[in-house]
């Protein structure tokens, strides 16, 4: 299925107009994304990228196609780049990047490219190197998955840290609020002859 140069060009053009978002909550669906980004530009299409190989990584990724490359650029840089943009929950912000060709799984074939294959047998001098390359590839894959685990661990750590801090603060405030509300603060204030702030 060799696609023509035209198809490929059209595809490339589409790529330029698409934003790649990740760190999305799994509960985000298409309409939410649309509404989120409609504030800044016209959303033409939303496509989620399924995750087949990693189970622990729950953040979803999506490709959002907008009207023009300039809009895409603007959204990436100004909106998401400058402020933390949050979709459907706080405070983990989404991350945006310009989309790349490899992110699309239905991409057409690059025209003019032929794949040549050859079998390397054990008696071929390159066999050893090829085996080493294979092992290297496996090693890299293992490294990558290890790294991913580390990344997840870091994220969890941060999340825990933040949520603990948040809870503590929350309790503090409710406590204060409670005290203010039921008048005990005022009582104490009058007892100590201190002015209590009422707000």
């Amino acid at each position, binding site marked *: 299925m060799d696609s023509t140069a035209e198809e490929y060009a059209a595809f490339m053009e589409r790529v330029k107009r698409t934003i790649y978002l990740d760190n999305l909550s799994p509960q985000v669906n298409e309409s939410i994304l649309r509404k989120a980004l409609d504030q800044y530009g016209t959303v033409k299409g939303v496509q989620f990228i399924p995750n087949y190989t990693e189970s622990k990584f729950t953040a979803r990724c999506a490709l959002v196609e907008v009207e023009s490359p300039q809009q895409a650029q603007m959204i990436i840089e100004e909106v998401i780049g400058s402020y*933390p943009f949050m979709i459907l929950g706080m405070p983990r912000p989404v991350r945006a990047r310009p989309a790349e060709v490899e992110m699309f799984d239905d991409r057409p074939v690059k025209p003019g490219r032929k794949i040549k294959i050859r079998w390397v047998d054990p008696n071929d001098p390159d066999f050893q190197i090829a085996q080493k390359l294979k092992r290297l590839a496996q090693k890299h894959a293992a490294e990558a998955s290890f790294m991913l685990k580390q990344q997840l661990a870091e994220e969890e750590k941060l999340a825990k840290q933040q949520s603990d801090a948040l809870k503590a603060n929350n309790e503090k405030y409710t406590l204060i609020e409670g005290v203010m509300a039921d008048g005990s603060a005022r009582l104490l204030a009058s007892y100590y002859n201190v002015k209590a702030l009422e707000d």
Partner: protein
Amino acid sequence: MKMPLELYQEDNVNRDVQSYESVTYDGVEYCLHDCVIFYQAGEAETYIGKIVKIIDTTDCGKQLEVVWFFRPSEIRNYLGDYEPQWNEIFLASCEGEGLSNTNFLEAAQGKCSVVCISKDQRNPLPSKAELRSADYIFSCTFDVGKLTISRKFPNEIHGFRVENFFNKRKDRDLTLSPIRKPSLNYPTGMLDREVDAVTDDQKYDDKHTVKEEWVRPTSPIKVRCLGNENVALKFKSISDDKVQERISSGKPKEKDKEKFSSHFSASSPVKQKSKKKVRFSDEVNVAVTQTRDQVPLEPPQLNFPKDKGKNSNEASSLVEQDQATKTDNNADGGHWFKRFVTPWRERLQKAQERGTLVLLDNLDPTYSSCEVELKFPDVAQEIVRSAFNERVEAKMVTQTPFSCPLYGKAFVIFKSKYAATAVINKLNRSCLMLTDQRPVLGCVGSLRKSDDSKLFIGHYKIKPKRLTEDARSAVATSHCSQENTIEYSMGMEWRTLQEKTERWWKQLHEKQAKEMMELKKQLRIQT
């Protein structure tokens, strides 16, 4: 460390010796009446035997009792005028030395398919396809006592009924075969190889040499009672300490079979030959209960698979396909509607269950799914060497921020498990090099089950005690947070983490790219 062995127990008569119906060793399941290959270091050919008993003794471990098949070269002095076919072997019979032996399970090198073409009434004749796909055929016996060949089969051989040695009857097979859960014989994907893969090259070389020792299998026992020039092998008892040495120096069981066979092939070309003969003989025993009618009708297409309907295996594996997808495995024109019918994820899962899912790694990441789909049937055909017109479905795994930009992966669904495993084996034994010097890796594909998707790290909710109705039903809209909120500062913390992770990945990828370039420079043939 014990090798993984699973057994299905049949009876428990004798405390010391228990017999079984099947045993799995090193990822291969050996059932009663399967044909097994044994290899002895230094010999040019492998030995083939038919399992008549699988036993487990308390002192010697698991053992296979086999009745031997003789190759023409071994009995050439007794052939007389008989001219055997190129892949013909002879079943040992009657009483004498060389009829059968009991070998350690660890000496088995794999299975092969042996089909009987004798016109004996008790023997169901094989179909053309079975004949074509069989490794060996036999039609005569070799009397080890009288040293003669005969077309007649006695009523029993070594105490077992001769029907056990003929081809299995298809209808009987259904009732006899134990219900086996489909299980992946290979570990799930490459992520499990973390432990091994982190070793550096130095350590690897050590293990490589150690492996060479291990690879010498504990020699199978066969006594040849032949002509002058052939040396009669002694009944070698496999010493316990040799087995021990193998087990202690051998790879831990995380090391999957592919690694083993890659070492295997690297160490000597002679051994390579015996590995080639390994086929999963499930296909021979597959019951043809489903007829052609159940296969969805396809409109006549150009590339009609040649053996449709002829091959019983093909028929059964065709029917095995997802019936919901009206797939036509013919021309490419059919592809477009295939994708609409069942979502890809479901197809992946089904393929994984059936064992036809293969994960290819180290592809050029800029390949598209179509290219993989087009190219791989040719590759598969070369490997499978049969008339299977293997159509594959393939999809590239999309790049994510955490997948290395150097490596492209693809999930490929084959039409039959046999083809999938054959492809994996071949990819591991020799190398398929792509245009830019990338050897393709193949392993059994596995999908990770997604965890509870409700948990998303980083989103918290505060539940204040008193809330108005409106406040409770409010949903956080998507927004940019402003600087004076607490969520802003939290958000920024996340941002910094994200930036950090991006940098880590970039560094890792750069390092990996460098390593790869280094290695590639060593390749002599630069295509």
